[in-house]
């Protein structure tokens, strides 16, 4: 909403407030002023000029040579390129030395050999957006009506010396969608009166009701419809003051009748529509729901197909307006219009909203109806427009209004006690102070002991409950005056849940291990949504995505991590270690909330360790990732429940990938990105992991309990086993552990050999075994007895021989 300072000052005394001061006060009281524009501040030296003569430029077809009276003794010669320049026009002239917006300086110049002492300006050259220029001047220079004098300040004549406050209105403050509404707000802030226009239209003897009949067939959608008839109007431009104020308010001037309806709309916030009475033909207005599929051409010449969810104004036969949104081409005011019907109605916000949405049409009118207009202004606005049509379009107002329906809701009464007001705000206000605030708002109040009852005018439809009164008091009392306190009463121990703590532990661990945390988008393309998913499901799709790239919900964190690694790799950062924790969204069926699982995923590519001057390099491989995962799980104290199993899910290298098991249940995958896929995204060898983090974090962790340090020496035995190549080390380890019993405290692989010195199809795996007895010193004999059992079990279960 653009508020002209000059226009506003007609309703409330703001002479002692600079536009900036006023803007600051309005902002602090609750309506944000986003900016204050002062167009004249970036211009100077622009005066009214009178074009005395115009002749063709001798050397240029498209230029005119003009002699312009600028209020000095001698007229000045100006070369003008506008097509519409002519003798006898009053125009805006930027004199030599003038400055136009954008610090555009006007200098004396020679154009094709002819001297030019200034520039005749268009409105857009004077900083008025061309979409707001009256159509006839949009393509050329502006012509003043004759009520100006050469030499006078053209910026003042055009109201360019105004200040325009841009208000950013929240949806509840539709009351401020009008000059009078803003005036009430400013009056409350400054503690002043509001001066409303006096309304006394001069009426002719002829009865309006003889000219038009009105019927409402949809009273729920349109409780009241008021019309006035103005005859004998002369269509022409509206006066300069009205055109310029409209442009300052962001409205394009058309002609006097249309401008008047727009002016009153901006003034009162009540949308009006002017119909050409004669083009109605039937002398009748019927308001009804549109028929399903009914066709209608709006005044922007677009054919609209209507539905029964939309309200139309008809002449009893066919639609003449889409109620509250836009008029029809068939009844629009034209240059030939003589008799006008002014519509002022109250349309239900939902019905206007539906129509505006269905046709993608948002107008100043629909915006106001959607948010709710003040029913108390329906009649006044109609009267105001009729009066202005007499004054500015030479019309005659017929006697009376034609009114269908009735809508005069009682102003709401809302009560609150002083005690509740103070306890909600933390203040110590007195009743007198509270009463004063409401009187500044022009609300009437009634006090009964501790309770104040406020009668809220219908213009403030946003105030309905005691808390709304609290807000009015708080904002006008000033939030700066509210003290700083902290909540009293029962104090609570704050903290993170074990789950949340666990998540932080995992993140810290990975960062300590060299991973940077990534955050990627949850929305992705259809292709990516299914990539690397743990099980085949239909990805969850958005109903109306903004792009194909962000149309589905991810089922894995990996696709975007691969993308991030490729992004870095393409920018000379070939060694990447990224991890992410975040949700994936698994389809559980139509209209059911998807299952959200928190995952932990990561990618490593390039060098894992690198120490250049010592020539040390270690590329990331499968075991790098595995080590990291084992570290995470060990950190959570869950290592004994973790295992790995060879797997070949889609997207991974079939020989270098494992399923991660927790309590024998699959919770994720680690492995090498499939080389063909890696090639597709321009990545070298890359290793990935993704785990169900929620399973790990929800797993019951053991309480930490001290285990005594062994007091007796341990005995180590190393064994090198020869087995088939396909035998997995984990199975050998399992056999060793089982046979080793309680004396065996540790077993680990320390060497693997497959090569020339082995029989074909065989490999050697060497284990180090550690035996200890916590209660006494182990003897060699005891160890040997157990060790023999281990070897026998290995032979029996894995056909493992000791390497010679």
């Amino acid at each position: 909403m653009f508020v002209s300072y000059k226009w506003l000052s007609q309703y409330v005394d703001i002479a002692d407030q600079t536009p900036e001061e006023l803007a600051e006060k309005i902002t602090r009281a609750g309506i944000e002023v986003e900016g204050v524009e002062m167009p004249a501040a970036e211009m100077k030296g622009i005066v009214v000029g009178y074009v005395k003569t115009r002749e063709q430029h001798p050397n240029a077809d498209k230029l005119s040579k003009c002699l312009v009276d600028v209020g000095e003794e001698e007229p000045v010669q100006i070369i003008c390129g506008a097509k519409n320049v002519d003798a006898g026009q009053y125009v805006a002239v930027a004199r030599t030395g003038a400055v136009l917006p954008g610090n555009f300086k006007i200098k004396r110049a020679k154009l094709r050999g002819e001297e030019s002492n200034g520039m005749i300006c268009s409105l857009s050259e004077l900083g008025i957006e061309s979409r707001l220029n009256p159509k006839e001047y949009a393509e050329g220079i502006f012509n003043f009506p004759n009520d100006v004098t050469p030499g006078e300040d053209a910026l003042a004549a055009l109201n360019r010396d105004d200040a325009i406050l841009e208000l950013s209105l929240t949806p509840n403050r539709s009351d401020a969608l009008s000059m009078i509404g803003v005036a009430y707000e400013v009056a409350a802030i400054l503690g002043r009166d509001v001066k409303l226009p006096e309304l006394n239209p001069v009426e002719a003897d002829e009865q309006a009701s003889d000219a038009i009949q009105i019927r409402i067939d949809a009273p729920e959608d349109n409780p009241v419809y008021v019309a006035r008839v103005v005859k004998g109007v002369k269509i022409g431009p509206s006066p300069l003051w009205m055109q310029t104020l409209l442009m300052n308010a962001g409205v394009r001037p058309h002609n006097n009748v249309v401008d008047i309806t727009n002016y009153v709309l901006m003034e009162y916030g009540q949308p009006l529509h002017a119909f050409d009475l004669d083009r109605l033909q039937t002398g009748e207005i019927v308001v009804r729901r549109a028929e399903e599929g009914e066709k209608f051409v709006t005044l922007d010449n677009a054919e609209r197909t209507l539905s029964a969810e939309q309200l139309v104004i008809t002449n009893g036969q066919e639609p003449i307006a889409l109620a509250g949104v836009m008029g029809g081409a068939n009844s629009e005011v034209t240059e030939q219009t003589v008799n006008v019907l002014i519509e002022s109605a109250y349309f239900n916000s939902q019905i206007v909203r539906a129509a505006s949405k269905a046709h993608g049409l948002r107008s100043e009118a629909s915006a106001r109806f959607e948010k709710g207009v003040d029913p108390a202004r329906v009649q006044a606005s109609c009267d105001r427009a009729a009066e202005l049509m007499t004054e500015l379009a030479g019309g005659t107002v017929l006697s009376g209004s034609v009114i269908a329906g009735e809508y005069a809701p009682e102003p709401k009464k809302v009560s609150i006690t002083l005690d509740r007001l103070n306890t909600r705000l933390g203040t110590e206000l007195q009743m007198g102070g509270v009463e004063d605030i409401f009187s500044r708002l022009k609300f009437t109040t009634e006090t009964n002991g501790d309770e104040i009852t406020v009668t809220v005018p219908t213009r403030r439809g946003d105030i309905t409950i005691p808390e709304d009164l609290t807000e009015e008091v708080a904002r006008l009392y000033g939030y700066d005056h509210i003290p700083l306190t902290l909540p009293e009463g029962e104090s609570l121990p704050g903290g993170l849940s074990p789950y949340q703590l666990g998540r932080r532990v995992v993140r810290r661990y990975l960062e300590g291990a060299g991973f940077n945390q990534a955050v990627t988008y949850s929305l992705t393309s259809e292709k990516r949504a299914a990539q690397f998913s743990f099980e085949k499901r239909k990805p969850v799709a958005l109903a109306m995505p903004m792009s194909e790239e962000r149309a589905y919900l991810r089922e894995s964190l990996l696709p975007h991590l691969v993308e991030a690694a490729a992004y870095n790799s393409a920018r000379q950062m070939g060694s990447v270690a990224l991890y992410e924790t975040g949700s994936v969204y698994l389809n559980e069926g139509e209209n059911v909330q998807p299952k959200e699982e928190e995952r932990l995923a990561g990618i490593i590519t390039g060098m894992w360790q690198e120490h250049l001057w010592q020539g040390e390099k270690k590329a990331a491989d499968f075991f790098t990732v595995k080590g990291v995962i084992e570290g995470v799980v060990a950190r959570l104290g869950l290592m004994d429940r973790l295992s790995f199993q060879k797997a070949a899910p889609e997207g991974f290298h079939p020989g270098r990938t494992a399923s991660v098991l927790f309590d024998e249940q699959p919770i994720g995958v680690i492995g090498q990105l499939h080389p063909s896929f890696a090639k597709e995204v321009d990545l070298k060898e890359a290793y990935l992991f993704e785990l169900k983090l929620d399973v790990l974090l929800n797993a019951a962790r053991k309480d930490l309990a001290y285990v005594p340090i062994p007091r007796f020496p341990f005995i180590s035995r190393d064994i090198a086993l020869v087995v088939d190549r396909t035998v997995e080390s984990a199975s050998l380890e399992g056999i060793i552990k089982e046979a080793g019993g309680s004396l065996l405290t540790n077993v680990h692989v320390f060497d693997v050999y497959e090569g020339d010195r082995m029989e074909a199809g065989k490999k050697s795996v060497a284990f180090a075994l550690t035996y200890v007895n916590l209660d006494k010193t182990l003897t060699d004999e005891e160890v040997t007895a157990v060790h023999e059992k281990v070897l026998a079990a290995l032979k029996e279960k894995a056909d493992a021989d000791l390497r010679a």
Partner: protein
Amino acid sequence: MEEQLRGLQEEAVMKAAAAQDLKELNDVRIAYLGKKGPVTEVLKGMGKLTAEERPKMGALVNVVREAITKAIETKQVSLESEAIQKQLAEESIDVTLPGRPVKLGGHHPLTRVTEEIEDLFIGMGYTVAEGPEVEQDYYNFEALNLPKGHPARDMQDTFYITPELLMRTHTSPVQVRTMLKHAGKGPVKIICPGKVYRRDSDDATHSHQFNQIEGLVVGENIRMSDLKGTLDAFAKKMFGTDREIRLRPSFFPFTEPSVEVDVSCMCGGKGCSICKGTGWIEVLGAGMVHPNVLEMAGFDSTVYSGFAFGMGQERIAMLKYGIDDIRHFYTNDLRFLQQFSVHE
């Protein structure tokens, strides 16, 4: 015999002193003090001495032996010292060469900001509540006083999945779910961090995915001044003790009264490009929980009141670290991420 011994002592001490290395010195030890050495030989000849001479000569042998031993030990210390000096000199390195790097990862700046805010409020007795990102229309809007068709729904352009399911537009549904769990009994004191989604085109200042952290306190007699005091404490801890806050009236359907909260700019009010010359930076939205929201969540609004606030981690991080484009948070450029592995 005595002379012989003295001669040996002199000879051995000289040889010990002349030894070039530990091996030579050891040879001297063996040559003079070994089982076959001359001193032992002398001792063997003791039998021929008289009973009177024997103890005298025995004492002398010991003196000579000790003298030789001492000479050898002295020399050994000095030789060992030389050897270690030599070794140390050889082992000397260029300490200015780069160390073997231990890879250093780090928090994403959004996590960093989130954890900082979490910790700050945990210190004030809050717990951290989380909830689903795909929400039911009811929890995201209706229970927050935003019935279907409410014009304020336009303030948050929404990604719908079905008419009843959507990507949450704020973390407020977590507040609703938490209040419902409390079944009408206070106090409630939570913060809700998490990802949220709006139907926005991505550019330098807009992102269809971003993070929010909201706070909610519900109790008996919670006041607007408590909100102000809490946010003042937050601003001072987050941005510096010299910072102030300013409340401006605003509108949110779920709070009444509603305010926007500005924090004074680091320029100290002089005006800079960050605060656009105003001296204030908009950081938060807040307000007193709307009685409809309390009632729908099962709280008696005549007994209970509450405040709520919400802010965006992206905005805070951009202000705190001077980041100029919101898209950086989601590109995961290492040159961006690595800057945040440093502990402040």
